[in-house]
C-alpha cells in the first residue's frame, strides 16, 4: 500500500508541483527582466499590486481544493453522460483549456518582454501584468482540479472500506508524506535549474518549458478522446519503451514535463509538433510586427 500510494501520488500530484515551480520560475524571470530595465522604479511600484504573490497562490489553492472535492463527487454521474464518454469529454476540454491558457501566457510573456514594451504607458503595463497574473492563477486552478480530482478518487476508494484503512493507515500516511517530499524536491530542483538556465542562456527558457508542459496536458486530453474513439488512433509509429519506459521514474517525469510518449501514433505526433511550433511562429510574427512598427515610428526602418 505504501509503494502504491507513493506511485499514485506521484502520477497525480507531481504535475501540480511542477506547475507551481514553472509559474514561480516564470514570475522570477519576469522580475529579473524588469530589474534590468531602465524603468525599474515604475515596475517595482506596479509589480507589488499585480504580481503572482504567495497569498494569491494560497487563495487559489484553497478554491482549487473545494473544486476538487465537488468534481470528484460528481465524477461518477459525469461518467454516465454522453454514452459513457462524459468524463473523457469534460477532462479533454479541461486539458485543452490548460493548453490554451498556457499558450496565451506564452504569447503575452514573449511579446511583452520585448524591449518596446517598456516604452508603453504604466497603465498598459499594469493591465498586461494583471492579465498575466490572472492567466497564471487560472492555469494553477485548472491543473489542481484536473489532477487533484484523480488523487481524490484514490483516497475515496481507500476510505470506502474500514478494513483497508485499519490495515494500511500508516502505509497511506507515510506514502503521502514520502510522495510530498519527492514532489517538493523535484519542484524546488526544477525551479533552480530553470532560473540558472535562464541566467546563463538568457533565452527565456522557462516560457518554453511552460509551453511544453501545456503540450503535455493537451496530449493527455487527446489520449482521452482516442480512448473513447472520438478521435481516430492509428498504429504506433515507434516504441522507445526499451530506452525510457513510461512507468519508470524518468518516464513519469518526462511525461509530466514534456508529454513523453513511448509509443506515439501519427495523430499524436502531428498534434504534439503543431502545438509546439504554432505558438512559437505566432510569437515570432508578433515580435517582428512590433519591431517593424517601432522602427517605422522612429523613422529608422
Amino acid at each position: 500500500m505504501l509503494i502504491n500510494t507513493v506511485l499514485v501520488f506521484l502520477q497525480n500530484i507531481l504535475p501540480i508541483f511542477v506547475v507551481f515551480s514553472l509559474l514561480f520560475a516564470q514570475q522570477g524571470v519576469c522580475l529579473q527582466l524588469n530589474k534590468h530595465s531602465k524603468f525599474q522604479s515604475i515596475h517595482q511600484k506596479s509589480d507589488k499590486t499585480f504580481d503572482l504573490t504567495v497569498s494569491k497562490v494560497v487563495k487559489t489553492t484553497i478554491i482549487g481544493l473545494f473544486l476538487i472535492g465537488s468534481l470528484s463527487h460528481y465524477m461518477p454521474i459525469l461518467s454516465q453522460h454522453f454514452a459513457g464518454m462524459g468524463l473523457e469529454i469534460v477532462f479533454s476540454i479541461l486539458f485543452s483549456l490548460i493548453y490554451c491558457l498556457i499558450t496565451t501566457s506564452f504569447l503575452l510573456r514573449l511579446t511583452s518582454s520585448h524591449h518596446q514594451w517598456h516604452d508603453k504607458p504604466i497603465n498598459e503595463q499594469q493591465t498586461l501584468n494583471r492579465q498575466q497574473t490572472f492567466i497564471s492563477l487560472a492555469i494553477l486552478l485548472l491543473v489542481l482540479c484536473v489532477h487533484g480530482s484523480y488523487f481524490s478518487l484514490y483516497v475515496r476508494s481507500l476510505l470506502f472500506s474500514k478494513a483497508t484503512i485499519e490495515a494500511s493507515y500508516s502505509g497511506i500516511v507515510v506514502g503521502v508524506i514520502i510522495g510530498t517530499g519527492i514532489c517538493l524536491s523535484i519542484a524546488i530542483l526544477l525551479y533552480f535549474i530553470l532560473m540558472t538556465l535562464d541566467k546563463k542562456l538568457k533565452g527565456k527558457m522557462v516560457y518554453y518549458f511552460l509551453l511544453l508542459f501545456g503540450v503535455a496536458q493537451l496530449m493527455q486530453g487527446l489520449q482521452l478522446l482516442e480512448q473513447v474513439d472520438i478521435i481516430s488512433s492509428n498504429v504506433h509509429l515507434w516504441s522507445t519503451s526499451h530506452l525510457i519506459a513510461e512507468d519508470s521514474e524518468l518516464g513519469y517525469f518526462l511525461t509530466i514535463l514534456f508529454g513523453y510518449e513511448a509509443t506515439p501514433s501519427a495523430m499524436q505526433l502531428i498534434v504534439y509538433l503543431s502545438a509546439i511550433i504554432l505558438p512559437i511562429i505566432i510569437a515570432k510574427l508578433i515580435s517582428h510586427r512590433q519591431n517593424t512598427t517601432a522602427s517605422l515610428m522612429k523613422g529608422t526602418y
Partner: protein
Amino acid sequence: MSSTLTRPKSLFKVQFIISYILLMASYNVFAQRQEFSITLKDHLFYPAEMTIPANKKIKLIIDNQDDSVEEFDSFSLNREKVLFPKQKATIYIGPLSPGRYDFFGEYHPDSARGVIIVSEADLPIPAIKEVDNAN
C-alpha cells in the same frame, strides 16, 4: 473588390475543414467495433488473459462489480479509465501490432492484473478466453 471575392473562398475552406473533422469524429463514434468484455470482481480481472485481433480497433467493456473505485491502467496500451463501483465503462483499443500488452488496476496493482494478447490469427467472435486469474 478582391477581398469580397476571396472571403467566400476562405470561408469555404474553413467550412470544409470543420466538416471533415466532424465527419471523421462521427465516423469514429458510429463505427461498429468488435466487442470484448472484462469483469472486475474482488480486485481481480476476469478473464485475466484475453486475445484480440491484430491491426483492428476493438471495443472493450469493463464491468466493475466491486464496491470501490478502480482505475484500469495500461502504459503499453496508452489507456487509463476510472471504473466506478457497479458501473460499466467502455474504452477502445488498437489498432495494435501482435504482442502482449499488460494492464492493471492502479489502486490494487498487486491483485488486479491482466494481459491482452494481440494475435494475427483469425479469432472466433467474440474471442474471450476464460482462464483462472493467476494473481
